[in-house]
């Protein structure tokens, strides 16, 4: 009889409607349009803060990384050993992988740079180990390990978390953005427990990571008073108050004790 057909039809419609309704979340992924009337930095007056991060004491020995569960990477590490990057002390007793950034004192809101931060998974290891980025800045994740499945898991207390698998294929890339300032977001691979990295997410572009010479540079800062923080994954944080005038370049230094 008729009533049964209609009941059928209606139930079907409802399910279909349910199916359509779900598509919405995908549409909202348009890039955050924060660039309206973005304030500009006056190049003429911009100041710079540079410096070094020193290390005192004996550096702990960094262990060789074993990659027993991933045959491809295991073979590679047998040829070129990889060492943990937790504490790397350069020859001149400076400390690498320290994230130095402006913690307080910035008056202006600056638009996110278009410049892409590349984050690679190569030989079951993250490159780089520590990196800074601004909220909304593109974070391009690569997987250069062909045939190896990685998983990128960002562990966040804020809204920066993500967690997804990434099969290893030529030219594969996923671009993400971070949503809230957070120092630091831990990135790890759930498939390979030895893989770990840190991303410092800020709402401005004034950050730097110390390299093989232990130096950092915070360029094109508006003159003013700042709190500068240095963060290290093992030795914690240290802060300094710095005042810079127009066109001034100030040199500061941090020291971590082992």
């Amino acid at each position: 009889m008729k009533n049964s057909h209609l009941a059928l039809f209606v139930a079907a419609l409802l399910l279909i409607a349910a199916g359509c309704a779900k598509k919405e979340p995908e549409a909202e992924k348009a890039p955050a349009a924060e660039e309206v009337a973005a304030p500009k930095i006056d190049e003429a007056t911009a100041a710079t803060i540079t410096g070094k991060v020193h290390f005192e004491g004996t550096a702990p020995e960094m262990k060789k990384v074993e990659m027993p569960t991933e045959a491809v990477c295991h073979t590679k590490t047998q040829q070129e050993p990889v060492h943990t990057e937790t504490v790397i002390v350069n020859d001149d007793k400076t400390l690498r992988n320290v994230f130095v950034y402006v913690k307080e004192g910035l008056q202006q809101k600056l638009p996110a740079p278009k410049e892409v931060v590349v984050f690679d998974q190569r030989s079951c290891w993250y490159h780089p180990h520590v990196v800074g980025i601004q909220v909304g800045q593109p974070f391009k994740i690569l997987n250069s390990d062909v045939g190896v499945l990685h998983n990128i898991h960002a562990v966040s207390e804020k809204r920066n978390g993500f967690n997804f698998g990434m099969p290893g294929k030529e030219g594969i890339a996923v671009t993400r953005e971070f949503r809230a300032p957070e120092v630091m977001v831990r990135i790890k691979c759930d498939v390979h427990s030895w893989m770990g990295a840190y991303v410092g997410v800020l709402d401005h572009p004034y950050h730097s990571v110390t390299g093989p010479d232990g130096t950092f540079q915070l360029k094109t800062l508006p003159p003013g008073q700042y709190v500068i923080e240095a963060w290290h994954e093992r030795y914690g944080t240290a802060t300094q108050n710095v005042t810079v005038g127009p066109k001034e370049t100030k040199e500061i230094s941090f020291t971590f004790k082992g």
Partner: protein
Amino acid sequence: MAKVHEPHVAHAPQSFIRRYIFSTDHKVIGIQYYVTAMLTGVVAGILAMLVRLNLAWPAHEWPLLGKLFPVGMEFGVMKPEFYISLFTMHGTLMVFFVLSLAPVSGFGNFLIPLQIGARDMAYPFLNALSYWTVLPGVIIMLSSFFAEGGAAAAGWTSYAPLSAVQEAIPGSGMGQTLWIIGMVFFIASFTMGGLNFVTTIINLRTKGMSMRRLPLTVWALFLVAILGLLAFPALTAAAVMLLFDRHFGTSFFLPAGMYVGDKLLAHQGGTPLLWQHLFWFLGHPEVYILMLPAMGFTSDIIATFSRRPIFSYPVMVLSMVAIGGLSFVVWGHHMFLSGMSPYLGMAFTVTTLVIAIPSAVKTFNWLATLWRAKIEFTAPMLFALGIVSLFVTGGLSGIFLGSAAADIPLHDTYFVVAHFHFIMAGASLFGVFAATYYWFPKMFGRMMNSKLGKLHFWLTFVAYYSTFFPMHYLGIGGMMRRIYDPTVYQYLAPMQPVNVFITLSAFVLGAAQLLFLFNFFWSVYKGKKAEQNPWNANTLEWTAASPPPHGNWEGPLPTVHRWPYDYSVPDVSDDYIPQSVSPAEVQARKKG
């Protein structure tokens, strides 16, 4: 008894919405449930196909599928988290939203008043409400695929801590929360339905319909409703606790010292085993919630098409009561190796093997019903016989798993997958098919195409065995459940051809269901008009028109004079005597 109800069902509501959408007519609601379950079943079946695809060719690149599933199969390769979501949702949808919904809520609603001689369910409004509660549940469950991180990914059992810690797996984010909410809707709906079933069966039986004259289908549904009412509260409690652990920092299921995402969690004092106890306290009766209706349908359909009374009706009822009762004390057999005390394992071994006795008795009774029968091989009968075969296969493999020591190598392997796909999934799926072919004329007033129906059976039966039986061998060979790529293990790699064979069979099985869908929707509109009693059956629904009007019977309610299994009574001209036929009429029909 039923007279109490007669006044308010006298007029069928006239407006479209009241009549077809927010209807309180048990038949409309039953069909709403059925169709919801059927469409959910299509989704759940497709999920299974994807699971099988990946198991046969793990991590293979399928560019086309990459376009269809832009997140889960980004770059064309199935991601492990998507794979896990697929089998999690396949299980959840099938167990709760298809194989509970279709036989219990669908056929239960449709059949109970018709088979006991009532105008409607005891609480028609509650009945409608229960449907409109489960529908959001279905929608929430399905929508979880579009949540960030994908759908729930802790298995249909949602074991904590995987389900309790958001960082544990991508699907443990929003997807798991939606899973819990969807389940709460389902349980609320099922509870309303259960109350309605029990009240209706106890209070609204027509004159003469004593409990000892109830068709076995109604007995099964009655027991199922009781099981649901007693078992589901445990899951409700567990689901709420899980929600609290996830979002409000409680520690029901989380002990101290858990290190997830390179962070030490602040939880302390809980235990993951609590979830398992609570879940399986529901989970095992739930298995019988799926199976009992199938047992009821089979008994009635086999009797009808054997033209034989069901063998040993009182024992059939008692064995169902025993199965229902025992189902509450066997849950621990899912937990032999969970870290639970081995003494408990011993107790649960005993109860588990005891429950095999009434199950075996039922099988023998079905066989005895076939003895000296005059079998008519209709589509519903073929499926009912299929159930007997699947039930035997699945029941026997259960004996391995029920014995704690033999369970050690087989636990959480494909042997278990094979076992429950035969006994729980297979029997109840075939039960739904049998019931659909059998009662379709009553539901829609038209016949389903019998040739297509039989073809559907042959393909399904063969494909079912070739899909699920080889899983026993995989399980014996040690292949674990829920693994994305078995070829990672050297000892499993040689069995990969079996996985390919199973996948191909599964595709045939899936494709065969298209016949059913086509037959169903085609027959709703174009099927041959059905007579009132096309199968010459005895139960009361066949004394109503096809389909029955609002209120089920035009005139007064039928009076019952006998049990429903008077088939081939000697010396009577017809080989069946409907329940409503009085002894006097039988006298008149006696052969001269």
